[in-house]
């Protein structure tokens, strides 16, 4: 199973064959996260050949006991006195209709030993759409039919104003963070089929960076030979990396 350490160490060595110590390991980790996140995002929004959206729990993280806060005062922007909200505990993908939030449910609301996400879940709405809900008895926000709407890194709620809800559970499609304490040695949270593409993308970025002459850096040495300063705009010499799996998926969708 590939780990981020294995993956990034290999890339660092490949880049160092061209230039020792030019690019730092932490930078390579950061670059890996660009392309891993891009891959995961595209994979999540891609559709299969008959038009169904890709549905996988691979990038789902469940957070329980997220404290529900009732704002006592207003702080602009986004904190409004008297409203109940939670702070999204981690960075999530910005999918259409806030689908980065897979679900929010009561943590202590169990029916027949079911986990909370199979019982009462919050339905997604938005500040501009919420008004209509109050005109229908079947849709009106209530403790049995609560709603959430996202405002930046907060989720506000409708329907639970009159009850005491100290904690909630949320299933979130989280982004990949290469700098957490365990990120280096855990199995890399991306399909192994993506590694060839991501490797090429990171190497491309590294090669492009190495096109910048070192003499352009201010190292306090008087070594700026005029001929070493590039006269033309620097552009990557590499063709953009292409994920053939996704291309095929998109093509079949078009057909």
């Amino acid at each position: 199973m590939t780990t981020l350490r294995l993956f990034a160490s290999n890339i660092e060595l490949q880049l160092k064959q061209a230039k020792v110590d030019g690019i730092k390991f932490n930078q390579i980790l950061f670059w890996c996260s660009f392309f891993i996140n891009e891959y995961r995002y595209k994979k999540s929004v891609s559709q299969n050949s008959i038009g169904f959206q890709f549905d996988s729990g691979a990038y789902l993280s469940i957070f329980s006991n997220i404290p529900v806060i009732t704002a006592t005062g207003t702080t602009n922007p986004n904190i409004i006195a008297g409203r109940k909200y939670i702070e999204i505990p981690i960075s999530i993908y910005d999918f259409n209709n806030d689908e980065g939030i897979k679900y929010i449910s009561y943590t202590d609301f169990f029916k027949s030993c079911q986990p909370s996400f199979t019982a009462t879940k919050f339905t997604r709405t938005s500040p501009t759409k919420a008004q209509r809900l109050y005109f229908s008895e079947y849709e009106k926000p209530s403790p049995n039919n609560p709603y959430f709407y996202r405002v930046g890194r907060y989720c506000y709620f409708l329907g639970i104003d009159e009850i005491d809800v100290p904690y909630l559970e949320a299933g979130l499609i989280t982004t990949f963070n290469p700098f957490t304490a365990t990120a280096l040695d855990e199995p890399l949270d991306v399909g192994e089929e993506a590694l060839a593409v991501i490797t090429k993308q990171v190497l491309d970025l590294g090669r492009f960076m190495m096109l910048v002459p070192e003499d352009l850096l201010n190292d306090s040495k008087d070594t700026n030979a005029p001929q070493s300063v590039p006269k033309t705009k620097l552009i990557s010499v590499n063709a953009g990396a292409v994920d053939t799996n996704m291309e095929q998926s998109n093509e079949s969708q078009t057909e």
Partner: protein
Amino acid sequence: MILVQEIINRCNSFLDSEGSDRFNFDRDYIFAINSSIEWVTGLINSIYSKDKFPSKYLEELTKLKVFKTSNKSRIYLNETVIGHSIWNILAVYPKIEYTGSLTTQPNLTVSIYCPNAVFSKSSKSAKRLTVEQWNERDKNIFLSGSQYFENINSELTDYAYLDPMTYESNPEIEISPVVNNETVAISYLKKPTSITAITDSIEFPLSLTDLFVQKTLNYISIKENEITLKQLTDSNIKTLIQIFT
């Protein structure tokens, strides 16, 4: 180690003065040999700065010692306590493992040399920053010396050090992110000791013997106004430098 006697024997042979008092150790050789040591030191300094000199030539002079930093993450390389002068700092290793015992640090504001501790290993190596780069290190988290990764995942911390600078009374190396009152290993080059007696040795490897002989002869030729010998040794020295570098 090169025996001084060996250099004198070879010089006498070149000068055809074996068994003669024409060239005397105290009057001629001691100054020529010490000048040669300084000349080779200067030469290596220049070549070393271009990362070209094989460290094998300096093994007698290369040391790796353990210190405890001050509460400002600084180290004073006290030459009197260490026992020799320091020529150049080669590497600074924070977060080390060691064997032996540490010296008690009576004053936490002052670093201390731990002669009884022996460096075992470290997975960290501090990069040297210039005085200009030093204060920029916290602005960009990817620069060596940034505190950022120390707070979120210390395994990713990239250490940096600043060459000795006098902040208060003594020149001190500073390490970043801070390693206050922690053990640190420093690899450095000791300054070669000048010779005082014919029984002394020069702290360079035997492979440099001929370079020392040629340079000693070169200094003697200047003193003797011996043009031919001067030209010959100049040419030999040039060839030897090309071979070594």
